[in-house]
């Protein structure tokens, strides 16, 4: 098993004149719980789309578990599970039908697909609505189903775009425990989230992207050292604001809203 799960070299994506991702060099070790952070519009989703095959890079290279993504996309996709932005569900199937569909698409045999679907639906507390279509699920239920679909084939890298958004506290706790157990078994988890507390609690390593460029990467301790924080109590939020807010452009000018205060 390669020591590095995800490598990107000079990964760039342009949309016309706009460079959404600009020469990103990422290295994520196998078995890491990796948080990918950045302000709105920084290039997080574009990066994750390129890493999962939803978007073609303008230039640069992606390697997943030693497999060159551009040269062997199908082999690379077999190793990964994805909860994409918007979840990518077929809304007119039931939860069971959707998991059966995804399992078969990833090449699982029928018996394994059915067995795993049943277990996943019960774990995600979705088994009591066997006839309900996904379109009629709540947002949180859809999120749980999307996560179940992402793990049904036992991926070695899991890409999660805002996985806890809209999920209730009880389910979120169970999901976090599941993800933590997966990393113990060597699965690499690549997660984006706006909730910095979640990232701080779950992730051992973090990268921060800002205006398309990678501005920080490393363990929390390394990031603390990077900003010159002396205390280990410096939170990820403080680190994030210190790095991203350096140019001052994002600092809201509260004096302008004096009528509200």
């Amino acid at each position, binding site marked *: 098993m390669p020591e590095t799960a995800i490598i990107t070299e000079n990964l760039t994506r342009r949309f016309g004149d706009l460079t959404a991702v600009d020469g990103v060099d990422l290295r994520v070790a196998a078995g890491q719980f990796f948080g990918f952070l950045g302000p709105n519009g920084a290039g997080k989703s574009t990066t994750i789309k390129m890493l999962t095959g939803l978007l073609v890079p303008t230039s640069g290279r992606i390697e997943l578990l030693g497999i060159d993504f551009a040269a062997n996309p199908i082999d690379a996709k077999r190793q990964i599970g994805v909860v994409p932005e918007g979840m*990518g569900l077929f809304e007119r199937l039931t939860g069971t039908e959707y998991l059966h569909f995804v399992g078969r698409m990833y090449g699982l045999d029928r018996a394994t697909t059915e067995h795993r679907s049943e277990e996943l639906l019960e774990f995600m507390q979705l088994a*009591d609505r066997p006839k309900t279509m996904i379109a009629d699920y709540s947002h949180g239920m859809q999120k749980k189903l999307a996560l179940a679909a992402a793990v049904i084939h036992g991926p070695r890298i899991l890409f999660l775009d805002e996985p806890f958004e809209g999920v209730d506290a009880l389910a979120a706790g169970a999901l976090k425990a599941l993800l933590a157990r997966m990393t113990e078994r060597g699965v690499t988890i690549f997660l984006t989230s706006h909730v910095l507390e979640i990232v701080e609690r779950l992730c051992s390593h973090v990268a921060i992207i800002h205006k398309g460029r990678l501005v920080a990467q490393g363990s929390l301790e390394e990031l603390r050292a990077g900003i010159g924080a002396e205390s280990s109590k410096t939170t990820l939020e403080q680190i994030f604001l210190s790095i991203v807010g350096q140019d001052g452009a994002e600092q809201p000018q509260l004096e302008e809203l004096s009528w509200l205060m």
Partner: protein
Amino acid sequence: MADVEHKTALTEQIYLVMRLRWRILRNGLRQKSKRLDLLGLIISGTFATILVLGLCFAFYEGARAFLLNDRPGWVALLFWGIFVFWQGFPFFTAGFAANFEFRSLLRFPLKLSALYIIGLSYGLADFSAIASICWLIAMVAGAASANPVVLPSMIFVALLFLWMNLTMERLIGSWLERLLARRRSREIFFAVFILCMVSLQFIGPALQRYGVVLRPIVQRIQPYLSPLPPSLAGHAVAAAVQGHLNGVFLSMTGLGVYTLVFNGLLWLRFSAQYRGEEMNETAAPKATPLLRRKSANRSGHETWQLLPPAVAAILRKEISYLTRNGFSFFTLLMPPLLVILFSIQFTGTHPTIGGRGISAETFFPAMMAYLTLVLMSPAYNSFAFEGRGIQTYFTAPLRFQDVFLGKNLLIIVVLTLELGLCIIVVAYRVGLPSPPRFFATLAAMTFAIVGQLVIANWSSISFPRKLAFGQMRGQRQSGMAALLAFGIQILLAGMSTLIFLMGRWTRNDWLPTEIFVVLAAAAIGGYFASLEALTAFAEKKKEILIETLCR
């Protein structure tokens, strides 16, 4: 205390809502697709305007003729026409999608009276209302030109009738909102609509055959209709012409009572909404007690062993989507009904062309060509209902050709079943053509269907358009895809006609069959050869495809 210094006036609130709608329309036009939609709307609007103006002339002439020919009571028929259209048209078109936009206004400090007026004005913007108002104006003008004395009463009746229709349509709309809040009831409703539309096609032939029998029944029902609003409006006009003021007063009072009752009920409905009651609220689906279900097939036995697993999974998913999509599923009822309809109109005992019916030799290939045209058109936008699920095809470890194979397989199965059924209906109704013509048609259909699949797959990637599941309202295919489908069908029909004529010119009945078999074989070979190229093309176009369908 919020910084609200004065209450917003009723007129200002209405003006703000109007401005909001205008801005939504204007901002929407920044997108190319919306501009194309507007263009489509202008073109269809032009046709609709021609239709409305043509009928304006009919209503004008109708009202004028009834009064000049001393038959003022017949004006009620015109009121009935408007009434049925005004209440029926939105019932079938607007009803398929609940309109939540109007309710979203409730979060603003809007007065109940403003909400009521805005609600009514939404009704006035419907096509049915605009058309009906035009026809009412035409009727008033027609009646006035025949007898100027009735003009004041005619204007009064028309205004009262307009108000009654407007409130009644809004009231039915608000009741329907609750009924149609559930997807299942929307789909059942839609099935009824499709059946009604198909049944309408049979009215002409049925009247031809049973018109004489039906007339006395209609005459017997007529008196029971007199207390209803359109008849009351007609009676009021007739009484005004005859100078019976009591009759005018009585009929208008009746019409006024209807208007007041509908207004009162609508006011109550809006008041409930204003207080925060959700009119579209339905009971939540019941959860089934958690039972560990035993899988039906734990042995690992594959149902469709001949197919690769990914193709089988996509085929299964496509079958589920077809059976759950009311619009697509119920349109499958159309082909056999169309065969019956056309066989009534063009063959047998009701000849309409040249004094004799069309022979089976011509009817069979023409009917099959038409049905192929109808059934193939959805294939030109085959990702229409995928929504965000389209991402799964690109994140899963599969080649895109498997997606096409799964989708095309369903189309072929559906076409085979439908056309097989239609051949049986044609054989029963008209009879089958000679063996050379029969087999030539089958080979031609194979060529046309398989050949079109290649182009339809390309079109699905090049011109995707997201369509709402199980809905008809606002559903329009991509203009380019529709144009391409039409062009290809014309080309194939022209080619096929030429090949059939070659058989006649060479006096070799089996020549068309031989040519079509060769073409069908070439089309099948071309289809499989195209899959590789289409996979590469899908990879190239995936960003546009995902962006369009996930929007």
